């Protein structure tokens, strides 16, 4: 019986799905013990109920103005104080921009180990995580003492909500001081777009899109499917798109339910970043392209012909 703390995350007013996945992981690690969760920042308390429905018995709401915007100083101070108060045996965070940044700092301060980017749990507990961007997997366990992990979105299934469960909401006061950085501005480039790391469907373009404008048919397909748009290194290096869209060993590693690769040949470094997707579709003019070796379904053809047809076909069936 263990006590497990989940650090939940709210983005754009929405509870992130990875927080529910973290609660599922925490339920396993607790071995019948207690799962508690934390929400950081102003106006996050309304999400406590959903965390309760997914297994958190208590939700600590850390409502402090300095937590409205992430900074390593503010978040690490708050999380450290919360961990010292709660005294958990294990802490689970999402492997998100915040989780991957604050977890190493706090674990260093507490003298704990940390296993990052976990995709599965096994008895022990043993934590499975991809290495070489998914070309291989590593199993890790903790020597002794405390456990801290960040889990990759989309890999550990969230449990179903039990709306009959009640949750105790506890405001938790923290002292935050000596902040050494100030966030002056946040330039939103992803407003209204689906985040690549959490996307269920990704439409991705390679050198075959030929230009920045060449992404237009891909964007249209993505709109119809509610998908995120990604790219290969080839497309990014050729300046067809922003580096933030890059999928591969350099770039983002993604595991959506459906990955549609358009005009991507399938260099090893790209395959590393996407070949663990559940279903892969490849569209490429070259029947010898290595992408077809990892694809579940392939169409040999010009993406500028195939993709608009695909968009039209999905429009028909999805109405």
């Amino acid at each position: 019986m263990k006590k497990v703390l989940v650090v939940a995350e709210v983005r754009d007013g929405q509870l992130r799905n990875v927080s529910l996945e973290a609660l599922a992981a925490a339920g396993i690690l607790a071995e019948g013990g207690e799962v508690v969760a934390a929400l950081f920042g102003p106006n996050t308390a309304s999400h406590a109920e959903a965390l309760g429905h997914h297994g958190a018995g208590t939700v600590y709401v850390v409502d402090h103005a300095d937590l409205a915007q992430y900074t390593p100083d503010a978040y690490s101070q708050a999380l450290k104080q919360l961990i010292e108060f709660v005294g958990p045996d294990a802490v689970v965070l999402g492997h998100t921009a915040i989780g991957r940044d604050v977890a190493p700092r706090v674990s260093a301060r507490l003298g704990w180990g940390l296993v990052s980017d976990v995709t599965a749990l096994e008895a022990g507990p043993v934590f499975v995580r991809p290495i070489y961007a998914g070309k291989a997997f590593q199993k890790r366990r903790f020597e002794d003492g405390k456990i801290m992990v960040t889990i990759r979105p989309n890999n550990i299934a969230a449990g179903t909500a039990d709306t009959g469960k009640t949750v105790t909401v506890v405001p938790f006061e923290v002292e935050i001081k000596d902040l050494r950085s100030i966030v002056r501005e946040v330039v939103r480039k992803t407003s209204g777009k689906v985040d690549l790391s959490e996307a269920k469907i990704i439409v991705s373009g390679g050198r075959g899109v030929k230009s920045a404008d060449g992404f237009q048919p891909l964007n249209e397909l993505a709109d119809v499917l509610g998908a995120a748009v990604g790219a290969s290194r080839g497309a990014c290096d050729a300046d067809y798109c922003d580096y933030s869209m890059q999928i591969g060993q350099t770039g983002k590693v993604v595991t959506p339910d459906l990955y549609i690769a358009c005009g991507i040949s399938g260099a090893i470094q790209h395959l590393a970043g996407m070949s663990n997707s559940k279903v892969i579709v490849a569209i490429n003019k070259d029947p010898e392209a290595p992408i077809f070796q990892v694809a579940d379904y392939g169409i040999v053809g010009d993406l500028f012909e195939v993709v608009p047809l695909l968009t039209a076909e999905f429009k028909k069936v999805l109405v």
Partner: protein
Amino acid sequence: MEGTVKGFVAQRFRGGTRMQLAAAAYVRQQRHYEGGILVNILVVMKQTFDTEEKIVIQDGKIQDDGVEFIINPYDEYAIEEAIKLKEEHGGEVTVVSVGPDRVEKELRTALAMGADKAILVDDESLFGDEYTTAKVLAAVARKTGYDLILGGQMAVDSGAGQGGPRLAEELGINHVSTAVKLEINGSSVRVERDVEGDTEVVETSLPVLITAQQGLNEPRYPSLPGIMKAKKKPLERLTADDLGLSAADVAPKTQVVDQTLPPKKEAGRILAGEIPAQVSELVQLLRNEAKVI
């Protein structure tokens, strides 16, 4: 002036003989106070497999026979940025790595790009997990001194991304991760960082640790004269004794119990026929067979 130097030393160096450290720091400060800016830049880097390498595993261990090694691509951005800052502000760039003897090759590459000195901690008793490496790098940083520490936002082999934040915490300094733009003016630091596709503008001050994201710069190729010079540049090898560490001080908190390859994907289906018919078939397959739409 005396007071300032003492204050600087007290703030930046912990452990060791304070007098020795103070003397060393004073010398460094005299050397690097050019144009009113103090820049002692440390770059932490790692040697990794070339990203085009396939992984071979035997008895749970990754095989490195005949593998082509490179500088971790994210660390390469950090090295380039350090050299650019040196060209702009003056100062000295020291590249540091923890790893086996073969890492010398990548350190020499960094020296050929324009770094001034290299440090390799090639003592196996100091190899471990992320907890271990951060402790070791912190000991190196305390020994060399630093105003700015740069590194990649993650290594493409382990993919954990713990190194930067952990090292900053060990040293008690601030960090800013996934930088795509970095400006330093005196002791003021302005960073544009990538946050899941959005850009955050962060202001902070030295000393600070910054991790590099793709897009920060375009790393240069070493020039031929650069490669010649690099052979003569200092590369210091450090052991646990040199760093005042014991294996017990830095014993890892986690262990690797196994490493495996992902299950092989079965060959997929290449559709046939006229393109419009293939497209209809694909949509039906995704809905009815794969059930992902």
